[in-house]
């Protein structure tokens, strides 16, 4: 049992997952599965971005879908209206994510908690409305067709599903790698300190604004890059891509996987994506199942797949440690680590 658990948290698992991802197209007979997987990976990249600002830094950003759309639109506009190739446009999309992220971040990060969340919700909505209304630039609600796909090389053609899958997988691996490096680094710890408390972080000499903005910009770059890849595969986009629904979807992925965890974003995205595909056969009735399922998940697995597992394991380990400690004078007893954010009802009371 313990050995299994250790395996599940050891790097071996990550390698195993990677190998699985690499061979997936070979063992899957069905191109549709590969296609779904590739799009899920794209979303996962964006969700990793959200995890940086929301999971690690504690700021719920509801404009995330908007930045995803910005990335997609930059690629669309540059390749269609200005005849750029995909890859330069892709880089431009990342840059645009950074620039807009910086501008929005500087203004919005002065706000706290729900105010920040709803403020960004509005920013997201404004992005949506601008994409829809600013016809001269975005083609308005008509959307943009014939977006250039990523240029391949040699025999590799990224308009084919399988090569595209590997392309996205490469980006995903890069993203996860960067996040894992980040989360273990001093910078990641800095973000965590901010998540616990602004005051605490400041008293430790952390420049709040600079770090928050950095986390925000990182997250928007992730979102915009994912959006750019998305534009490259769907090759048609409209303002609906900026719909707040996508942001909520991403939050759901994050929550189901485990917020603030490394593998959570990926597992959550895959779980929900496949679940939705499975429920497709129920057509319009599927929400009757999906809705309550979401509620049940949130009630009974509040920390998501990965978070729940880590807690369970953490408690076991701690139990063991304290058994070994027996006889020491430490009388503190073991308990479940409580939920990260303070109990809501008491939140107002932390005077």
């Amino acid at each position, binding site marked *: 049992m313990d050995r299994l658990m250790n395996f599940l948290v050891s790097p071996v698992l990550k390698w195993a997952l990677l190998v699985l991802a690499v061979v997936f197209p070979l063992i899957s007979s069905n191109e549709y599965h590969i296609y779904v997987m590739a799009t899920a990976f794209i979303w996962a990249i964006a969700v990793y971005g959200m995890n940086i600002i929301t999971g690690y830094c504690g700021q719920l950003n509801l404009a995330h879908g908007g930045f995803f759309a910005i990335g997609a639109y930059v690629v669309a506009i540059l390749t269609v209206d200005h005849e750029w190739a995909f890859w330069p446009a892709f880089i431009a999309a990342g840059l645009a994510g950074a620039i807009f992220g910086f501008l929005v971040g500087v203004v919005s990060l002065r706000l706290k908690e729900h105010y920040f969340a709803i403020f960004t919700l509005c920013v997201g909505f404004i992005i949506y409305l601008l994409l829809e209304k600013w016809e001269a630039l975005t083609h308005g609600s008509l959307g943009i067709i014939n977006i250039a796909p990523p240029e391949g090389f040699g025999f590799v053609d990224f308009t084919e599903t399988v090569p595209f899958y590997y392309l996205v997988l490469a980006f995903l691996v890069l993203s996860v790698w960067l996040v894992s490096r980040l989360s273990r680094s001093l910078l990641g710890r800095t973000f965590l300190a901010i998540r616990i408390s602004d005051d605490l972080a400041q008293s430790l000499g952390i420049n709040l604004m600079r770090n928050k903005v950095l986390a925000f910009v990182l997250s928007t770059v992730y979102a915009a890059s994912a959006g750019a890849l998305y534009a490259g595969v769907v090759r048609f986009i409209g303002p609906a891509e900026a719909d707040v629904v996508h942001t909520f979807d991403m939050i759901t992925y994050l929550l189901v996987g485990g917020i603030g965890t490394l593998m959570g974003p990926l597992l959550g995205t895959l779980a929900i994506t496949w679940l939705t595909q499975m429920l497709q056969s129920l057509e319009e009735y599927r929400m009757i199942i999906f809705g309550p399922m979401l509620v049940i998940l949130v009630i009974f697995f509040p920390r998501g797949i990965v978070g729940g597992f880590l807690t369970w394991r953490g408690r076991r380990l701690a139990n063991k440690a304290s058994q070994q400690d027996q006889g020491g004078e430490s009388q503190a007893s073991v308990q479940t680590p409580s939920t990260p954010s303070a109990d809501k009802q008491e939140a107002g009371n932390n*005077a």
Partner: protein
Amino acid sequence: MLKLENVDAKYDSFKALDNVSMTVGQGELVVLLGANGAGKTTLFNTISGLLKPSAGSITLNGEDVTGRRPSALVQAGVVQCPEGRKLFPEMSVMKNLVLGAYVHRRDKAGIKKTLDHVLEMFPILEEKKNQAAGSLSGGQQQMVAIGRALMGRPKLLMLDEPSLGLAPLVVKQMFETIQTINRAGTTVLLAEQNAFAALKIATRAYVIENGRLVMEGDRDAMLGNEAVRKAYIGA
């Protein structure tokens, strides 16, 4: 008046109270001593209904009240002044106090009388009565919490570390006040770190360790007990 028999309480799988049996007689002032994390607050919350015991029974004046809702217990006269105060931070001090008398809300004259009494006890609150409770200093908030509990005109008053964060002068007054309240006929159950001061006004005391009651005795026995002196009173 209050009787606990073999009460267990759990947080998830962690047993915070283990087979606790105790009695508090009418008019007594019983002190509960224990280190941090020993289970004092848990015991209080179990009595006041915020936590459901996982085993055992609680009787109040001969009536089984195990698992009753907190509101029902307040109605029955069991009022707790909780650790961490649990005030209504955005309401004025006055509103906080008045809400303390929620179960007596029909008795306007009675409320007025208790209110005067409380304000007399903590004059600073009179000064701050229109300020939001959350904007008071830590100690002032503690006073509001005690005041609010008194507004409920308790038969059994449970005070969970009331001296926490209070200035010595106020602490002294507070213990006097507790004694006064007790003499006037209210049964008091008191958890305190300030063991010496608490024992001085107590009738009896219990000592709790790791969720278990390990010692019981009247005031003098406790004050004389070497182990208690060492652990809870200091050199």
